[in-house]
């Protein structure tokens, strides 16, 4: 009896693996395209229970995210072209793992923009699908290929830097236009004429941070703690040190940590403390930063803290005492407390659906979709065009158009031919558990 059960289980597992991995012609009757979008529209697990409920409630399209529909979505390869009314927009990002806040934020932000555009009378409609890359270049390429099988026409690239470097090379080779919301390394756009960024590049952040600290007289003795095996952290730290010299800032402590030892920061903090640093610069993602803040508070060390855009998200991190982040300064292109109409509308919608304040990743992704909408409208593109044709049109549009979005300045955003955006970071300070702009 037991044997039979095990055999049956094994057979089931093998059957499942075979059924799911074969890219063979879809013999199952396709239930139409609406169900297929479903896979990408399922509520994010990380947004908590309330978020999930709300997402289900607000699912205007009325599809239930369930196992069955998902299984049908496994046969996208040879599904007929969309009914001819929606552009297939795909993106990869870390929906699971250590960087999941970024991926889910970008996905949610893009989803809101897509839903708004689809509900409006705009002639451009989108179908959005996000795939998980777990912040890994290999998985990102797999995710990108899965999106290609689905029929992606324009891409939102990848959310994080290193995966974006790998997927942007693929989309350059495949002639699929890509606009990444948040992959900030210079290598992402280098040498690829169809890959554009919505965020400012890493080196800019280091320079801007040092300039900001220098011009605002925030500190004279600076300590830097950075992650030595992280592209993002290193890119910012290097340009920060260069600019700090030019600004006459004194860097008294320069300490590193890496992937394996990112839990105990007493050595780095003690070094900063004994060297009497009055400002600590943290060019890193929010996870280690939250530990550093907690441990510094435990040892009674209270310098000024200065972070970069990776710090964004620290307030929504689960299990983090937000009072520790009080007074932390960071550079980000987006201010959720801004009072202009567009931002308020976006923030309200985001809070309603996902139960938390959007960070800049969500805003960047939101902007990406609207930028696409504007460019596609201007180019008179239609969804029956193939990816390569759209690619040509988009290259032309993005280098000539000016875009007004949630992030960036009043004078709008423009892109140069290399794909870099003209945008300057804004200084923010965390006050009473919220980001407040500082001038």
């Amino acid at each position: 009896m037991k044997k039979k059960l095990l055999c049956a289980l094994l057979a089931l597992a093998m059957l499942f693996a075979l059924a799911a991995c074969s890219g063979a012609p879809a013999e199952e009757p396709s239930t139409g395209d609406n169900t297929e979008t479903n896979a990408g529209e399922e509520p994010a697990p990380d947004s908590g229970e309330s978020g999930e409920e709300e997402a289900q409630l607000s699912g205007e399209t009325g599809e239930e995210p369930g196992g069955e529909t998902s299984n049908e979505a496994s046969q996208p390869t040879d599904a007929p072209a969309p009914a001819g009314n929606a552009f297939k927009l795909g993106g990869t990002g870390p929906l699971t793992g250590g960087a999941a806040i970024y991926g889910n934020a970008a996905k949610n932000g893009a989803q809101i923009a897509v839903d708004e555009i689809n509900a409006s009378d705009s002639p451009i409609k989108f179908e959005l699908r996000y795939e998980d890359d777990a912040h890994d270049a290999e998985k990102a390429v797999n995710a990108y290929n899965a999106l290609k099988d689905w029929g992606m026409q324009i891409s939102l690239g990848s959310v994080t830097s290193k995966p974006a470097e790998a997927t942007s090379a693929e989309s350059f080779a495949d002639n699929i236009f890509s606009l990444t919301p948040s992959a900030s390394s210079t290598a992402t756009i280098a040498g690829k004429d169809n890959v554009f960024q919505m965020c400012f590049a890493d080196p800019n952040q280091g320079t801007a941070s040092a300039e900001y600290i220098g011009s605002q007289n925030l500190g004279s003795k600076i300590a830097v703690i950075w992650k030595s095996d992280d592209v993002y952290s290193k890119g910012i730290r290097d340009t920060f040190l260069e600019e700090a010299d030019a600004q006459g800032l004194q860097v008294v402590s320069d300490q590193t940590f890496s992937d394996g030892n990112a839990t105990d920061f007493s050595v780095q903090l003690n070094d900063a403390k004994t060297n009497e640093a009055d400002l600590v610069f943290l060019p890193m993602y929010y996870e280690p930063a939250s530990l550093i803040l907690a441990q510094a508070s435990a040892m009674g060390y209270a310098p000024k803290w200065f972070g970069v855009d990776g710090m964004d998200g620290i307030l929504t991190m689960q299990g983090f005492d937000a009072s520790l982040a009080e007074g932390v300064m960071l550079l980000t292109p987006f201010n959720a407390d801004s009072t202009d109409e567009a931002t308020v509308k976006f923030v309200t919608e985001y809070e309603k659906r996902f139960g938390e304040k959007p960070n800049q990743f969500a805003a960047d992704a939101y902007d990406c979709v609207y930028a696409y909408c504007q460019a596609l409208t201007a180019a008179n593109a239609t969804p029956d065009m193939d990816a390569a044709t759209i690619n040509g049109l988009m290259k032309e549009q993005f280098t000539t158009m000016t875009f007004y979005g949630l992030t960036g300045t009043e004078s709008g955003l423009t892109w140069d031919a290399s794909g870099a955006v003209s945008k300057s970071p804004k200084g923010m300070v965390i006050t009473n558990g919220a980001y407040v702009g500082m001038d």
Partner: protein
Amino acid sequence: MKKSPFHFLTYVLVIGAYAALQVLQARGGLSSSLRGMLVPICAYVVMAVSLNLTVGVLGELSLGHAGFMSVGAFLGTSTAIALQDAVPVPAVRLTIALIVAALFAAIAGFLIGIPVLRLNGDYLAIVTLAFGEIIKAIFNNLYLGVDGKGVHISLLEDTTRTAETGRLIIQGPMGIGGIQKISTFTAGFILIMISLIVIFNLVNSRAGRAIMAIRDNHIAAQSVGVNIIKYKMMAFVTSAALAGSAGALFAMNYSTVVANKFDFNTSILILVFVVLGGLGNMLGSIIAAAVLTILPEALRPIAEYRMLLYAVLLIVMMLTANHPFVRAFFNRFRQTGRLRLEADGDEEREAV
């Protein structure tokens, strides 16, 4: 010495799979997703069979196999980039890179083997784990530039002063960027075949029997005059060299590679392939590596639950693969296969 029919079956299946996939690809029957995974699968297969040589044939648990992959990936790719202008034909460049990668990984294997192979069992496992981490840390801090004056190397900070005309290839934590994708499925297939030929011939040779004798009882082996260190080293270095070329193949399939990719998790993943496929069973390793690489991708449609289901399937497979009933079932096949082949052999002999 008569060759085991199982080895023959392995060759046939690998060639058959390659031919079938080539035909499918030519007819456009492969999804982009699967096409994109062909080269990584080849690399993981070579990793799995090479680790199986250490774990299954030599019987020593190594937890740092990704370290050798890393050595091969970085140095092989660097070689390919440095030769970009000198050797314009991609296939030739790839071959040179794979050989260089294997050489450097073999040297790393030899150096690590000197202290490590004096240990046994758990101790060896822990030390290899540490070496894997050390290799990762080195590549995370290594800067390597090439220009007209030759090769420049520095650690921790970029002090290589590579000339403007040259190129800084390995950039510390940023790894290598802008790699030309020259790995192909055919190259991967050839690498698998070479690995199988090397391993099967080693296992079937005098040295191979000595290695297995050490695995079964090293005191007995020593007492009959088997040079333990020598044969352990032979298996270990061969395994490292193959892993190195697999690493180079893997890295040159993506436009970027970072040292963190080859961490402890990757070592364990390869070990899972080996254990699931069966210790000493090369065909099992090949199948396990291919299935477990495709599985997470195949589970993509169920989005959030895929990693959960992947873990559950892994446990189910581990349990069933070791279940006596299933084992007996497969053994029966193996037995009949062997008997038939032996019968064929007898007939041939009679015919002669």
